[in-house]
């Protein structure tokens, strides 16, 4: 909470550098003169090239302290996601029936924020909805409100033969709807679509592991409670606890006042 919430550099730093030894070995393997590289090898070569370029950028970046010089370095040396994305899309087109095509499209969705991403989502929807790889994609699309993302999620929920793909598609669809729900909720309102989807997650996919030792039943259950009791228009549940000095107090002690509840930490 002490740092700015969005810092592009933090996003960059999250990409782990590959160990140098493995890169050299893979380069040698891909250079076999007689055999043309398989689609998977081509995909891997492109991933390695991108990773290598990232590493080089970071090495140079660490040597430079001046902010203007850093921005210049970024413009000149940072591997452009849309350029790699375009190559990945081409690979997916060239080898549409190969598993490498799925990997390439998933790479685009994960790494390229340009319009290439929408194209990749469309191709995954029309050509690869049956692949297990879609599980991570569905999970990652949770807050992607774009039409191609939402269409992929719906198609995955309706058509994937894999339970975990369906589970994450269902949950991601629900979370996306919760996020945009701004209309007040009244007692006696029929369940919203988000609520129905969350109930389906709990009933049909509850056992599937979600985050940090919790199942989808746990997390979707928390979201259902929030939808039903913590939406705009709901009377807030009471809070009972001790303040920092150990004195007990309740939220309802403050009826008659406008209250801001601020979940915070000094970390």
């Amino acid at each position, binding site marked *: *909470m*002490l740092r700015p919430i969005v810092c592009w550099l933090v996003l960059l730093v999250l990409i782990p550098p590959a160990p140098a030894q493995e890169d050299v070995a893979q380069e040698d393997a891909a250079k076999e003169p007689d055999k043309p590289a398989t689609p998977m090898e081509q995909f891997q070569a492109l991933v390695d090239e991108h990773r290598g370029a990232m590493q080089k950028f970071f090495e140079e970046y660490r040597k430079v302290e001046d902010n203007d010089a850093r921005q210049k370095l970024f413009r000149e040396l940072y591997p452009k996601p849309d350029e790699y994305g375009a190559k990945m899309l081409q690979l997916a087109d060239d080898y549409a029936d190969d598993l490498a095509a799925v990997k390439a499209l998933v790479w685009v969705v994960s790494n390229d924020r340009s319009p290439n991403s929408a194209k990749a989502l469309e191709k995954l929807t029309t050509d690869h909805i049956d692949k297990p790889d879609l599980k991570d994609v569905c999970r990652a699309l949770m807050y992607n409100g774009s039409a191609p993302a939402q269409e992929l999620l719906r198609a995955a929920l309706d058509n994937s033969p894999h339970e975990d793909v369906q589970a994450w598609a269902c949950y991601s669809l629900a979370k996306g709807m919760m996020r945009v729900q701004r209309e007040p909720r009244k007692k006696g309102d029929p369940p919203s679509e988000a609520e129905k989807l969350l109930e389906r997650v709990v009933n049909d996919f509850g056992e599937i592991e979600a985050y940090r030792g919790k199942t989808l039943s746990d997390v979707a259950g*928390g*979201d259902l*409670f*929030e939808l039903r009791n*913590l*939406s*705009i*228009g*709901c*009377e*807030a*549940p009471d*809070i009972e*606890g*001790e*303040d*920092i*000095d150990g004195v007990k*107090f309740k*939220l*309802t002690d*403050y*009826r*008659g*006042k*406008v*209250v*801001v*509840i*601020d*979940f*915070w*930490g*000094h*970390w």
Partner: protein
Amino acid sequence: MYPHERSLVERLAGEPFALLGVNSDRDREKLKEVLEEEKITWRSWWDGGSTSGPIATKWNVSGWPTIYVLDANGVIRYKGVRGSAMDKAVDTLLEELGEVDEEQAG
């Protein structure tokens, strides 16, 4: 830190308003020092020393900070508002309550 919260609390002193925190810091004793240093005058529940405490868990909080604004009847009226949007929400609800001097609200 926390200048926005401090100024809100100062501005609305004497109004039917309360800023209540749910705190997730691990060390309660260290937290008392933080309150003094940062001049945090508003009250907080100490939620057991983590972001997975009982209050944050019940309220399904996954992002920090998370803000709820309640009217004088305890009804949730705004969620996720920060900065000037939060000020506007509070002022709107105080107006509703009929006790804010419009000139002072600035």
